[in-house]
């Protein structure tokens, strides 16, 4: 009897914790979505249900252009960062004779602990003086933002790839080597398929890092290269913006759809 009460207590406490925890995580986002349907310029005063702000959002060229720029930079940056991240992960776990190896390890891991404001400042000063000395980059813009995003994303991808490469059985590669497979073949036929899930999650992480970045992009951007966070920040820095509410709701929808599809892919994977 006492045991059942204890057990009930435990379950009650568990449900209570999870309810409070998840409400804390979701309450702000859900409020934002609810108010995105508010037909009032003053964000917090409810006037009536409407899609007005969605219409205005899709007519706002500044936001649409920034969205396009952000997606472009994020996908390019994620792709380059993933390629180089794989190279770093592979070099550090499989190649022992790298000149100044500790320096290489330092280079590939310190962007992880570097505050983004310092990273942004250093890259901006670098671009300015390299423009001064060799004339490249000719101006700040999408290219400089892209270079900066690649630079800080590489480290994150490298960590993911490295942990996967050092945890799986190296003997398979050695067996292939003993059987006379050429190194390139070993990489494409054995190593690449094994690390493919890590490559995908590395790419996705690099993509979100770039899409989410405000600070580094603010330092390194120039005319014609406003990313979405820069535009959103300029809109909400001093006040509220009903269009940004609508934008949040759309982004939430995309994320939820992505999460649901990941869930179903995972489930079919587990069933297999």
């Amino acid at each position: 009897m006492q045991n059942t009460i204890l057990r009930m207590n435990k379950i009650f406490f568990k449900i209570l914790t999870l309810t409070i925890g998840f409400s804390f995580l979701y309450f702000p986002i859900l409020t934002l979505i609810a108010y995105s349907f508010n037909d009032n310029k003053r964000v917090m005063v409810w006037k009536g249900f409407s899609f007005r702000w969605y219409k205005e959002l899709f007519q706002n060229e500044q936001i649409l252009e920034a969205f396009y720029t952000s997606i472009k930079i994020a996908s390019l940056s994620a792709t380059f960062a993933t390629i180089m991240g794989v190279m770093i992960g592979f070099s550090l776990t499989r190649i022992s004779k790298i000149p100044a190896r500790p320096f290489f390890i330092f280079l590939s891991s310190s962007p992880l602990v570097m505050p983004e404001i310092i990273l942004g400042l250093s890259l901006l000063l670098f671009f300015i003086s390299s423009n001064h000395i060799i004339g490249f980059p000719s101006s700040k813009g999408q290219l400089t933002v892209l270079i900066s995003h690649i630079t800080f994303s590489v480290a994150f991808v490298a960590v993911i790839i490295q942990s996967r490469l050092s945890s799986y059985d190296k003997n398979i590669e050695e067996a292939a080597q003993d059987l006379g497979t050429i190194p390139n073949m070993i990489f494409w036929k054995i190593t690449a398929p094994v690390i493919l899930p890590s490559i995908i999650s590395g790419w996705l992480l690099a993509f979100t890092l770039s899409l989410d970045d405000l600070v580094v992009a603010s330092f390194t951007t120039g005319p014609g290269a406003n990313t979405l966070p820069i535009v959103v920040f300029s809109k909400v820095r001093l006040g509220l913006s009903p269009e940004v509410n609508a934008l949040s709701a759309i982004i939430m929808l995309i994320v939820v759809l992505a999460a649901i599809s990941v869930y179903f892919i995972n489930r079919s994977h587990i069933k297999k």
Partner: protein
Amino acid sequence: MIKLNLNSMTHQYSFLMIRYLKKQNFWFVFTPYFWLVLFFFIPLALIFKISISVSEWGMPPYRDLFSLSEEGFKIDSTLSNYLFIFSDPFYIRSYLNSLSLAFTSTILCLIIGYPIAFYVAKSQANIRIILLVLLIIPFWTSFLLRVYAWKVLLQGSGIINSILIHLGFITEPISMLHNHYAVILGVVYTYLPFMILPLYGYLVKFDLNLIDAANDLGAKPVNTFLKVILPLSLPGIIAGSMLVFIPVVGEFVIPEMLGGSDKLYFGKIIWDEFFVNRDWPVASALAMSGIVILVFPIVIFQLMYAKYNFKNE
């Protein structure tokens, strides 16, 4: 004799080098190596260089460190930027504010995140996956928009004020924005998933039988937690704390959106020094000191922790 020896040595060396290049795939290693030297290391070295340069009017707003003129080669360097920072309590206070913000919010994230991670990890498999997806959704949602959500909530006319007035706790809307409590709230909210997910990763691997075993052997629940569960989840606690602490130390966006002038933080100070005051040498000196004060301790801690783990294994 000597010549022959040298010849064979160079021969052997070049042979090794060719083999090395072929076998190790030169570009595979050196593309990212060059990239990081060029776009990470050189920019940092440049900040250091500018931080010991003399400020000057003009563009760029500092005097070149090395100059070659009729009087000959001259090095124009100064430590005055650093002396300036460390003689002004304003700057020192901003470093301390950033450290205390990072420390407070890491502890709060841990206290709030641990029970959530624990109960999610201990749920039945099918519920667990749904809860996990629910944890990941805020993690992927734009960081800026989640901060903005709190700005909306905490407004004078915002929903929290309305609820409090409705419940009769207050009669007039109170100002909840633009102070450092709002900053802590915003930081805890946005970084909570970064704490929960690594904790979950360790707790889900945890064998439930260990708790039963401890209970059967007569351990009190508090002791079971302190002596069994906590030590086994320590790697998760450290990983999560690092993921919160490191970015929060340099945080710029959250204080800018939710904070006020009651406490200034390191990120904002650098931003203003560069964009508003246009004093590059002082901004660079602030960044360099930031690396030494805020980043080095973390790196040293991580190295020590890695060593400790290595010894124990």
